[in-house]
């Protein structure tokens, strides 16, 4: 191939590549103004919400927005069968997202593989309200609930306020949590993986008045030997019953004496609105555990 042909080919390919980028003129909003199938304005009629975060989806369901939720991620729970999956964890299904005619798109921003950048390009020139929140700490969850209500407005705004207030009430100090002493909060047993300082569960545990048995990383992986050396007075298990089966065999005081609090509400594993209900369940479980501990102490004292 001579040099001139090669240059011509390169120029043609570069031109073709540049033409692939949807320009500002190809936006849906202006192109379909007046079209009967055009998306309704974000504020004028019922919202069409797409949530790319399981935690935010749970919050939306609690805000009574299930019927308005048109798109979600494959990991979102409790959505209607008709809710389309538009995110594979790696990239957005752009064509399907457009077909859904969303008015609001919400997602969780993360440090790696954040869908926000791709969304920003897609949303350019379209009548979409997009919002994202970091959901690392308990305060982030509260901010997201309130922000979601403000974004959607109407009834959702009031319900979001109520949910935030419910979360505040649930995280008020609890004498039973304080009475337990240092507790190890596990969400996996093989290998043991804990909620440490810097995680939203550590935040809520501290606000209840509890003390975390570990310091350091937010989600440290431990060895059973480390757990045995820590020998926490109590273990709080967040997750399914199967975790309990593994932990009961560990050679530590908490396992031997059954000092295990089980938080089995799935909401505890998501930094979203479901936390309020999950913490309420945890408080009930703490009261039961504290009662059992008191009874054991009393029986030891009595001759």
């Amino acid at each position, binding site marked *: *191939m001579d040099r001139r042909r090669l240059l011509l080919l390169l120029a043609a390919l570069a031109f073709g590549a540049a033409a692939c980028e949807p320009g500002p003129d190809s936006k849906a909003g202006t192109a379909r103004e007046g079209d009967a199938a055009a998306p309704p304005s974000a504020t004028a009629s019922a919202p069409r919400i797409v949530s790319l975060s399981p935690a935010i989806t749970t919050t939306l369901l609690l805000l009574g927005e299930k019927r308005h939720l048109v798109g979600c991620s494959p990991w979102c729970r409790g959505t209607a069968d008709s809710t389309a999956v538009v995110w594979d964890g790696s990239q957005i299904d752009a064509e399907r997202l457009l077909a859904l005619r969303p008015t609001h798109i919400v997602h969780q921003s993360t440090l*790696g593989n954040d869908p926000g950048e791709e969304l920003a390009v897609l949303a350019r020139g379209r009548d979409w309200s997009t919002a994202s929140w970091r959901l690392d700490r308990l305060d982030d969850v509260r901010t997201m609930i309130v922000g979601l209500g403000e974004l959607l407005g109407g009834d959702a705004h009031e319900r979001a306020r109520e949910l935030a207030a419910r979360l505040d009430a649930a995280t008020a100090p609890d004498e039973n949590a304080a009475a337990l002493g240092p507790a190890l909060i596990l969400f996996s047993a093989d290998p043991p993986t804990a909620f440490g300082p810097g995680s939203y569960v550590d935040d809520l545990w501290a606000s209840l008045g509890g003390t975390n048995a570990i310091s350091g990383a937010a989600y440290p992986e431990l060895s059973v030997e480390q757990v045995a050396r820590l020998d926490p007075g109590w273990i709080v298990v967040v997750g399914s019953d199967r975790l309990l089966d593994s932990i009961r065999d560990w050679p530590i005081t908490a396992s031997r004496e059954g000092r295990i609090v089980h938080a089995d509400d799935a909401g505890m594993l998501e930094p979203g609105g479901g936390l309020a209900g999950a913490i309420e369940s945890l408080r009930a479980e703490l009261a039961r555990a504290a009662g059992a501990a008191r009874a054991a102490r009393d029986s030891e004292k009595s001759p």
Partner: protein
Amino acid sequence: MSDADRTSAPGSWRHALSRALGMITMLLLLAGAIAARMLVGRDADGPTFGLPDRSEILSFRLTATVSALVAGGSLGASGLLLQTLLRNPLASPFILGLSAGAGLGMSVAAWAAMSTPSLAWLLAGGALLPAVIGSLAALALVVLIGRRRGVLDALTLVLAGVIVSSLAGALALLVQQFLPLETRGRISLWMLGRIPEVADAAVLSLSTIVSVLSIALAWRLARAMDAAALSDAEAVSVGVDVRRLRPALLGLSALLAASATALCGPLAFVGLVGPHLARMLCGATHRALVPASLMAGALLLVGADALRQIVDAGRGRLPIGVVTAILGSLAFLWLLRRFRPVWP
């Protein structure tokens, strides 16, 4: 030499005809895959068939098709250069640690952005820059380890690739231990790759130019590669300077793989299976193999992207890396069983 030998030997009319038929078959298959991708889309309920009535959706499909053509073609050609260079039919861009290097680059960038928020720009464009730097750094390390007495040794290069891959993978896991739980999961998903429907025009143009130039240069080296595929002694006996050819092939292969990674993230199997498919259809002559491997890689990636628009098990569209791994391994198995390996 018998008449039969003469007609089936490279350069004979029968060989030329078979090569031409192979190239035509490959072109037709690629055209079919492109047509399928342009005609298959998705709406809220599932796949849709036919050309879209909106120009922006046509633009999504065109961008995805061009991206898959460029990335798939680059990976196919990169795999061919490595298989020739290393004389190893299992060689692919990722055996030299490019994928693991990209993952390490991405993990380090995420950690840096978390520790120093002013470095958040590192994650722009799907962490393209750290991924490419990570790939090239891994390759540089492989080259450094793979030199014996100042010369690139084929066997040592493969072993160095395995070591660097394992090391980069372990370091990526180490860095991820310092990241929030959510981010760790997202990085794993990023490793499954993507076919952009809304691509950065600069990235797409640059990747296209790098790929076209590298493939054109590789094509010019085709006759030397024919000799290099045999043995060093035979290559030298026909006047090929293996000491200069190896770094050239390695450099071109790295450029092609980095360009594909910049566009679509790390994608496995395309670089491994593409050259084998090309050999089955077009023989072992590199003048035909370079364009045939390019087309085979593009065919695999465009075809996989078209297929994933249709397959939906109620969990949304599958990540492209899942589809290429399944299709690639099935295609590899079929090729092994259906055809006698052409590898010398």
